[in-house]
């Protein structure tokens, strides 16, 4: 079954942000001249007095956000995920992580689903980079509804957060906004033979794979691990004990992302067979997301194949 497409996760973020802005005047936005892409534009339109386009200058973008946070504001710092995390990494480390400031980084165009713009615009290292920052919470939402809920949770959380959003329309996972808690995963499908742990667009791919496997009588649990750090250790350990094999699916390079985080918990708590579906170690190309997923080996069929390898 293919899920209907809904708004992009970046739209879920932009919509929630403008709603939150009306409730909380300490929320401010700084954006590196990509407000139309990151979807902070609605906030800019509604609250121009507390939103700044810092121009095409990510280091200064993050530095200004750090200063706003140090003076008590809740800055939402937005750009493309790759430019935000890669161009301004030292500023994020020194200005936000090290002092532990209450700043929210939101990177759009996460993963290879950025598509036609090509690999220079795709963040495939952002989750690893964010997880490596001391004290950071790292979120990768699966669809627009959960992004809205997670955006609220991100603002309510006291401390530095990185959230990745995506460019394309996202398959609907949640018909209405789920109740979310940072660090607490959501089991979106029950199962007993195997577990697929995924985030971002890979939740939809994993559900499709689970439905395909069910036809062969394989009962697959699917977990939306929207928070990569801190990770839901309990759900992972439980899945390892209940179902044995675990597949981890993510739209990210193999190193340092969700797969690594889950493997660490499995190794500590309940060692079992694992398989990993990810972008590997090679940059993608231009193309449609579905074409790129297939080429990179992260389509639903690839998830299904990885699952079968564990049976």
């Amino acid at each position: 079954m293919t899920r209907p497409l809904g708004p992009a996760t970046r739209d879920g973020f932009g919509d929630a942000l403008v709603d939150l802005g009306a409730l909380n005047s300490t929320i401010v936005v700084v954006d590196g001249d990509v407000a139309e892409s990151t979807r902070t534009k609605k906030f800019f339109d509604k609250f121009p007095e507390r939103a700044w386009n810092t121009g095409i200058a990510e280091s200064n973008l993050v530095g200004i956000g750090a200063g706003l946070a140090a003076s008590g504001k809740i800055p939402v710092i937005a750009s493309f995920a790759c430019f935000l995390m890669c161009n301004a990494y030292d500023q994020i480390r020194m200005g936000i992580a090290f002092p532990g400031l209450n700043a929210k980084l939101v990177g759009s165009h996460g993963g290879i689903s950025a598509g036609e713009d090509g690999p220079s615009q795709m963040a495939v290292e952002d989750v690893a980079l964010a997880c490596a920052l001391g004290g950071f919470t790292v979120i990768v939402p699966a669809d627009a509804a959960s992004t809205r809920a997670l955006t609220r949770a991100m603002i309510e959380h006291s401390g530095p957060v990185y959230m990745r959003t995506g460019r394309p329309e996202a398959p609907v996972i949640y018909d209405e906004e789920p109740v979310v808690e940072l660090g607490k995963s959501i089991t979106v499908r029950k199962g007993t033979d195997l577990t697929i742990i995924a985030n971002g667009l890979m939740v939809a791919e994993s559900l499709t794979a689970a439905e395909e496997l069910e036809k062969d009588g394989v009962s697959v649990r699917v977990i939306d691990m929207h928070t990569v750090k801190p990770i839901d250790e309990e759900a992972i350990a439980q899945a390892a004990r209940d179902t044995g094999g675990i597949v981890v699916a993510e739209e990210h390079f193999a190193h340092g992302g969700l797969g690594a985080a889950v493997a660490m918990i499995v190794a500590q708590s309940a060692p079992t067979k694992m398989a990993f579906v990810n972008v590997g170690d090679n940059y993608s190309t231009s193309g449609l997301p579905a074409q790129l997923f297939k080429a990179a080996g992260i389509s639903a069929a690839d998830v299904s194949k990885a699952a079968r390898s564990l049976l």
Partner: protein
Amino acid sequence: MPDLIEIAKRIRTHIVEATTEAASGHPSSSLSAVEIGVVLFFGDVLSYNASEPKWEDRDRFILSKGHASPLLYALLAEAGYFAVSELMTLRKFGSPLEGHPNMRRLPGVEASTGSLGQGLSAGIGHALAARIDFKDFRVYVLVGDGEMQEGQVWEAMMFAGRHQIDNLTLIVDRNQYQQTGAVDEILGLDPLAEKIASFGWEVTEIDGHSIDDVSTAFDWARGLQKKPQAIIANTLKGKGVSFLEKEGNFHGKPIPKDKLPQALADIERGL
């Protein structure tokens, strides 16, 4: 007003004693900016409350050249943020007086610095917070001249000029040297005043060791509207200690213990 020349001597004494005790650190980079710091903290420039470091309406001072932490710590101690005796714990395990300023551990530090080029951006963030809250606090950021080789400083200057951030003053400690040599030889900044002015700033150039010059410059900065202000303070690296001044670029090392008496005598004499 207190005797700022006497306070400057005390600050210099703290800088050399603490770094020699620590057996590491950057005394010469701290000594060049002593008058700037002393006028800010004790010359009726900064509004602050040492017993309430997070007072919302305080002026902010950001030491962007974080390696000059011995200067910042000496200023904070003399201002009453903590006991002067704590200065001798500089760089030691357990002390909040770390090698570079850590705002998480030491009240009075407005930004964690040590990776150069970042303080001005943070200062802009504070200044914007004042603007949207209709507060009248001001932000002062001290950078080194070598530090201005960092591109982020110029990104920040462009932004501050564009947004007419007039509650922001940048002080450039123009001591002419960076770790491995003369700034002008490695990656020169001149014409520095013209460059900064072209970004939409008001600029003045002063003798950074003249208390009168420094005081006048801060008065000038506070009187200006619609533009951020830059004070280029011409200074000497190692100012106040004869053999450091003579060496020109005594960078990133403490005064050896056997030379400490001479350094302290130089400071007391007031070079």
